[in-house]
């Protein structure tokens, strides 16, 4: 399925929108391993990438898929991989490598039911905490969650842009419903997209090249591409500004703090959310991904019944957008977190509430979507 150049409505699947957005964002290398329900992304890119001069590789396993895109990214090519739960578990090892070595890359996880092989063709949102903390050690991460085919496209572009401008792995945390959903969507014209490229050194310095040096503690280092004559070192060991291993407590703390600050000093820019009627509502629904669609339906129905309902749709779940919840503060106000898991984001919302508003949830773990009726029933118990 090829994108038309003119701005015209199309009818397509979420996974197709993701693949086309990757190409529009400048991704020219994809390596991955087939897994339901993300496989369409690989299939489409195997056909589309060579058409635009890019390359696709089906690797021997999930780890190799991420390893190969990190290699290509270090050589200067915008790179992406896609997977689902079991594969996402395997990719955790090198997600940490990408975070520590500041290698731009996008990892798409079209979530399915877990744990283990779980429910391969059914939706779930059980990987939210894994996306945040799945790899070992302190590290920041950006995780974006689409709730429509249009958002699958738009957030893939954002994911590539954030990964490049901030030199960080970005996870696009979709779910089976959005990956396989066909719906009408309109995309920006080619050429009208605002695309980011990673900061690179302008020229080889006269003195020593320090790939991991920055001018401020939250700055993004200008790391050269391999093959450009800089002859520098990249290691998954804790490294100093010159890229070589160090065990210095000061250098270690400085590096890990900078990585954290690089993301957390930019939460206003990174944290995307749609909100409506937070001030006027006594009950506010908070959701993300496919479940946000059930919430939207529940909001429409509740308003028809004359209820004052607000809604927060999170498009960025990590870093967690604490500030988005500020207007929810108030006596008698309740936020209902709706998610296809037994409770993951709800705990973040409880932390953010810190007594300023009540928090409850609607959760499911059966491999089907939460229905608008279940949400309306929950609203009914509060009003």
């Amino acid at each position: 399925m090829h994108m038309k150049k003119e701005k015209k409505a199309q009818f397509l699947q979420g996974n197709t929108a993701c693949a086309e957005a990757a190409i529009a964002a400048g991704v020219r290398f994809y390596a991955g391993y087939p897994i339901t329900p993300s496989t369409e992304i690989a299939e489409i890119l195997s056909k589309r990438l060579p058409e635009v001069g890019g390359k696709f590789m089906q690797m021997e396993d999930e780890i190799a898929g991420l390893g190969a895109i990190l290699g290509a990214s270090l050589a200067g090519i915008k790179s992406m991989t896609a997977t689902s739960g079991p594969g996402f578990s395997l990719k955790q090892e090198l997600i940490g490598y990408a975070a520590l070595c500041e290698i731009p890359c996008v990892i798409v996880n079209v979530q399915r039911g877990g744990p283990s092989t779980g429910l391969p063709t059914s939706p779930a949102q059980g990987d939210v905490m894994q996306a945040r903390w799945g790899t070992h050690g302190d590290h920041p991460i950006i995780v974006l969650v689409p709730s429509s085919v249009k958002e699958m496209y738009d957030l893939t572009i954002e994911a590539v842009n954030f990964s490049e401008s901030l030199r960080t792995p970005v996870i696009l945390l979709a779910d089976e419903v959005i990956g396989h959903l066909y719906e009408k969507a309109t995309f920006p014209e080619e050429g009208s997209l605002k695309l980011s490229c990673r900061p690179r050194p302008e020229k080889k310095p006269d003195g020593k090249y320090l790939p991991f040096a920055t001018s401020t503690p939250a700055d993004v280092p200008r790391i050269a591409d391999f093959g450009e004559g800089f002859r520098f070192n990249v290691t998954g060991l804790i490294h100093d500004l010159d890229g070589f291993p160090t065990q210095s407590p000061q250098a270690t703390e400085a590096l890990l703090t900078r990585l954290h600050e690089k993301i957390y000093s930019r939460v206003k820019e990174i944290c995307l959310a749609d909100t409506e009627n937070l001030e006027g509502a006594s009950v506010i629904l908070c959701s993300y991904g496919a479940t946000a669609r059930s919430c939207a339906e529940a909001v429409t129905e509740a308003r028809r019944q004359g209820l004052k309902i607000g809604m927060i749709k999170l498009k960025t779940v990590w870093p967690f957008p604490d500030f988005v919840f500020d207007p929810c503060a108030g006596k008698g106000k309740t936020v209902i977190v709706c998610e296809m898991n037994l409770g993951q984001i709800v705990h973040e919302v409880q932390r953010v509430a810190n007594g300023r508003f009540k928090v409850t949830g609607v959760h499911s773990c059966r491999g089907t979507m939460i229905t608008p009726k279940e949400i309306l029933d929950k609203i009914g118990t509060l009003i």
Partner: protein
Amino acid sequence: MEPLSEVKDFLRIEKFPHIWCAGCGHGIILQSFLRAVIDAGIDKNDMVVVSGIGCSSRAVGYVDFDTLHTAHGRALPFATGIKMAKPELNVAILAGDGDIAAIGGNHFIHAARRNIDLTVVIFNNFNYGMTGGQSSPLTCLNAIAPTTPYGNIERPFDICSLAIAAGATYVARSTTYHALQLPELIANGIRHHGFSVIEVLTGCPTYYGKFNSLRSPSKMLEWQRDHSVNLKQYQMLSEDAKEGKFAIGLIHSAERPEYTDEYSKIIQKVQVVSQKEPR
């Protein structure tokens, strides 16, 4: 052979002293690798050297190229991505026996199967030196290691035969005892357009030697001398006599389409078609 001053020019001398133990054979392999790079006429700026985790993988920190110290066993996927992004670069992998044959074993056979133009130098010291000498998939039968205190009952891989069976198109073996033979074998591997494997038997007196009555570096070198046989002589040995012996020299060489070349052909073909096709 190139003078030592030329080799020094390819080292990051400021990163010395290295982490390797006294008597370790890895320095001989690293010197041979750099002589091979010089012999093959590779510019410093046109080579990327990639490694995984282990004693030998630390070698990348000491050589003056773009260098990448990846995760345990993962050098080949990273190297594959670099080669795909910039096929004009020479990409070499320095790997230990545990790194390439155990945790990275799957990547190894598939990189060989693709015949992607990478050069892998295997530092085979028969054990996991970095973690204290545990057994690896290349540890000799009956050898003692901290995790095989009653002797190793697992038959080791013949990593060269494995590479050939998987599709590697240049396979050679040598030892640190045969230091004069080694650089040329590596240089030819770098020159070869396809997946090249050079296995080098090396000594770890600190662990493997200590546990297996080969405690001194010279004993380890003598062991390499006594257990290696030129390929032609090896082929004339009886099956019983081959047991425990290593054939050395160029073991296998073949011409087969190289992966990044084949992919470039796909791009050319597809782009011609898509230019004709109205969009």
